[in-house]
């Protein structure tokens, strides 16, 4: 899936042009993220039915007064399932890239700063990880380790390390030769101080941008896993598994597939917009790596 | 008097920039008779390249062109795209400054010569290849048949420019514009290229515009010289008369800046102090006044018009032209 490509790409639309359009889009994206995030976090407190309650008499009901967005084939309330599904997607979506950014970011910074054999090893190691088609890697590891929110988060997190390593290393490389770093070294600053005080603040913003893009990718990967039935184990509702179930009912109740698909699409799109805007701001010409 | 082949009438080029409209070329008039050579001289940024692009109708998309460019009786600024395309090559040709960037790096030399011949002369591939070899030989490239299969990066700078010249001449144009043809080349090669151009020009009775920043290049190789500064023509005269008695302090300074063989060693080069004016902020007075050693209050207050007060076929724009008494200018 090309969506998993987190590489620092060639410069796309010029940031100047995009900024005007994205002004409104950016706000809408942030609004959606806040909305869905709040809904997911406060799901327990919201006045909605339980996602696992089955209303046998109202199976595959279209949206209506009783069930705002209808019910699925087992009579469970769609709206509630969508909100609880958001919980899973956002939890995995936000936690997995944290692993990537912490480990990958540090490795990248150290590699770009210290150079030499450490850098060669890091780059080589990252390349080997990149040699695995991502979904294959995730499927394989969860197959061996077992399906659980923890395992899935860990695996996707590890998968994200190469992208963050590359970004951190590239930025560090370009900064290491600049005057303020050379000056700090001349003044006798320790490596730790340079890394933390001088380099980290500059590396942080691009990493945050990639983090957001990573969230988008993670939501998709988790969705794909759940779609195949190999993600978070049932009965936890996940958008992916809801789409898979909806597929069975495409002819009679298409909204069962399209509603979770829409929610996932909007969430992925929102994180992509926000992440891309930040990326364009920090790095209008990413250049070669 | 033969009708001019090329007549540039009141041409101006404006480029929109964030800081305001930039007038790269300001109200330029030129005329060139068939078979004659015109030299356009000026520092970098004076607008000479924009002028050549304006003549060729190859301006960037955002540029705005004013005025007319008459070529062989037709107004190029109003010509439909297809008609313009058809006269490029057989009537109008150009050699750019840097042959490394003006030749396509991923196509062979042969392809780049042959396609021109095929496009305009309707030759088939074999005939075009033969003609291509002849053209390469004519511009002094050794082993021309092998060159057809080579790529631009496999040739030296001088050779590449010869190839560019061969391509330009391939359809026997009536006018060749050479935009700084030797600036990107080694000094030793420069004279060869210029001589090649002059020779071909004579042989084909072709009109030529030679654009350069070096006055020394146009001496002896052009019939007329126009000096540009800050987007305008500031002096224009037949070559011999220009060198014998130039009127513009700027031209004098340009000439003085050329290193001479017979000066004593370590003679400091009299460079022109200062820099050309910011094109987005035109000055009220003469554009050259801040750097001119003869400038006075009048020069800074009002722009001198380009005129021919001596009625000798020489144009200049100066309140205090050289070689004349103070009261001579209008």
């Amino acid at each position, binding site marked *: *899936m*090309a*969506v998993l*490509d987190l590489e620092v*790409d*060639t*410069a*796309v*639309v010029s940031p100047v*042009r995009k900024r005007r*359009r994205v002004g409104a889009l950016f706000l809408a994206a942030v609004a959606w993220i806040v909305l869905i995030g709040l809904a997911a976090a406060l799901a327990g407190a919201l006045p909605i039915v339980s996602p696992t309650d089955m209303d046998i008499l109202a199976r595959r009901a279209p949206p209506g007064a009783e069930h705002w967005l209808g019910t699925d084939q087992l009579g469970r309330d769609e709206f509630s399932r969508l909100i609880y599904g958001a919980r899973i997607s956002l939890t995995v979506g936000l936690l997995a890239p944290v692993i990537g950014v912490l480990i990958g970011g540090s490795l990248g910074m150290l590699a770009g700063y210290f150079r030499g054999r450490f850098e060669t090893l890091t780059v080589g190691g990252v390349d*080997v990880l990149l*040699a*695995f*088609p991502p979904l*294959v890697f995730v*499927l*394989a*590891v969860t*197959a*061996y380790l077992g399906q659980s929110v923890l395992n899935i988060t860990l695996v996707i997190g590890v998968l994200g390390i190469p992208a963050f390593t590359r970004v951190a290393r590239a930025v560090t490389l370009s900064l290491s030769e600049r005057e303020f770093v050379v000056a700090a070294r001349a003044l006798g600053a320790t490596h730790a101080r340079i890394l933390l005080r001088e380099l980290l603040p500059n590396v942080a913003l691009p990493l945050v941008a990639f983090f957001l893009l990573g969230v988008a990718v993670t939501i*998709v990967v988790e*969705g*794909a896993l759940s*779609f*195949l039935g190999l993600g978070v184990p049932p009965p936890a509702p996940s958008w*992916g598994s809801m*789409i898979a179930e*909806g597929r069975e009912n*495409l*002819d009679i109740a*298409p909204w069962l*597939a*399209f509603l979770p*698909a829409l929610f996932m*699409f909007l969430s*992925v*799109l929102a994180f*992509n917009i926000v992440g891309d805007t930040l990326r364009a701001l920090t790095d209008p010409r990413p250049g070669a790596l | 008097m033969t009708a001019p082949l090329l007549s540039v009438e009141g041409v101006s080029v404006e480029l929109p920039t964030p800081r305001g409209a930039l007038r790269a070329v300001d109200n330029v008039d030129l005329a060139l008779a068939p078979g004659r050579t015109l030299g356009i001289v000026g520092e970098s940024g004076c607008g000479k390249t924009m002028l050549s692009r304006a003549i060729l109708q*190859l301006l960037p998309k955002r540029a705005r062109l004013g005025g007319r460019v008459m070529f062989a009786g037709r107004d190029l600024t109003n010509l439909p795209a297809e008609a313009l*395309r*058809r006269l490029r*090559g057989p009537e109008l*040709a*150009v050699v*750019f400054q840097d042959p490394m*960037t*003006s030749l*396509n*790096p*991923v*196509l062979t030399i042969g392809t780049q010569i042959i*396609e*021109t011949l095929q*496009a*305009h002369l309707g030759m088939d591939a074999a005939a075009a290849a033969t003609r291509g070899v002849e053209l390469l030989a004519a511009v002094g490239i050794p082993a021309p048949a092998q060159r057809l299969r080579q*790529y631009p*990066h496999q040739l030296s700078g001088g050779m590449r420019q010869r190839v*560019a010249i061969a*391509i330009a001449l391939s359809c026997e144009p009536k006018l060749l514009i050479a935009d700084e043809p030797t600036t990107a080349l080694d000094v030793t090669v420069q004279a060869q290229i210029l001589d090649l151009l002059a020779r071909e020009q004579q042989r084909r009775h072709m009109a030529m515009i030679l654009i350069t920043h070096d006055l020394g290049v146009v001496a002896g190789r052009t019939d007329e010289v126009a000096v540009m500064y800050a987007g305008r023509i500031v002096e224009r005269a037949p070559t011999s008369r220009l060198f014998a008695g130039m009127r513009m302090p700027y031209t004098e300074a340009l000439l003085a800046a050329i290193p001479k063989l017979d000066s004593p060693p370590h003679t400091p080069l009299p460079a022109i102090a200062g820099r050309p004016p910011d094109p987005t902020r035109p000055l009220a007075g003469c554009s050259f006044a801040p750097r001119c050693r003869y400038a006075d209050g009048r020069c800074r207050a009002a722009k001198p018009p380009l005129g021919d007060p001596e009625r000798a076929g020489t144009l200049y724009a100066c309140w205090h032209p050289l070689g004349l008494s103070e009261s001579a200018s209008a």
Partner: protein
Amino acid sequence: MASFVGKRLLYLLPVLLAVSLLTFLIASLLPGDLAYTILGDQATPERLAALRAQMGLDLPIWQRYGLWLWDVVHGDLGRSFRTGETVLGAVLDRLPVSIELMVLAELMGLAIGIPLAILCAVKSGSAVDRFLTGLAFGNLSLPSFMMAILLIYLFAVQLNWLPATGWVPFSEDPLGNLRSFVLPALTLAFAEWPALMRILRSDMIATLQEDYIAMAKAKGLRPARILFVHALKPSSLTLVTVTGINIGRLIGGALIVETIFALPGIGRLLVGAIYARDFIILQGVVLFVAAGFVVVNFIVDMLYAVLDPRIRHGRA
């Protein structure tokens, strides 16, 4: 050219080795015992011990890796305990289907992406350009399984033009075979075209500003020739590289698509092995896919040199 290829080959081998090691390590993550998984919890301790000895499961891990690698290099990726077929045989059986899907998908992606990229590059900055670029961006947020559902709903359920599942071999029914690939390949193509289009558009915009394009115009060449010969060729380097890499990467997306559309490819083999907990097949397929990906990247590197003569002659 030979030294260029030789140098790249030297890179290839360590990477392949590392990939094999990583695959083996992943497989060794299995908590508990492979023998136990195969025989189930009905097995007696003696049978478990016997199987362990037979499979060499009680050897130290580095020895097991060595033995496994030795087998792999000799073409023995193991044999499924479930179906009895050799892993290599199972993979090779299904490889053509996956390749057909990936190639068709990439071709369709190019067929959509290239014309749009050229259009956007020529009209860069216009409303058309901005619209198409926005569309590409939006499409990137639509993963392949969602696109599959959408396309199935549209073409199979509503319009009934194309089959939702089902596959016939090419040798039996070429037209039917191709028909069964249309929706799956199209699904993947929609995931591919945005990246391809962005890359080509960006490179072409840069190329169109080069001096040699102005020169081509000054020579009076036809606009079509300038666009497709002078501008497209130098702009296509990145595109070719990415296309090549993507064909390999498609294995990930092909996995889901094969499963949804019931195509008997490698992806479906992998997913099926996971459903059936057939770890022997899983390990073999993962190794095959990863190694294949590395090799495809290598080939793409070579192709790059063919397209840009400057690299061939060592003067990038």
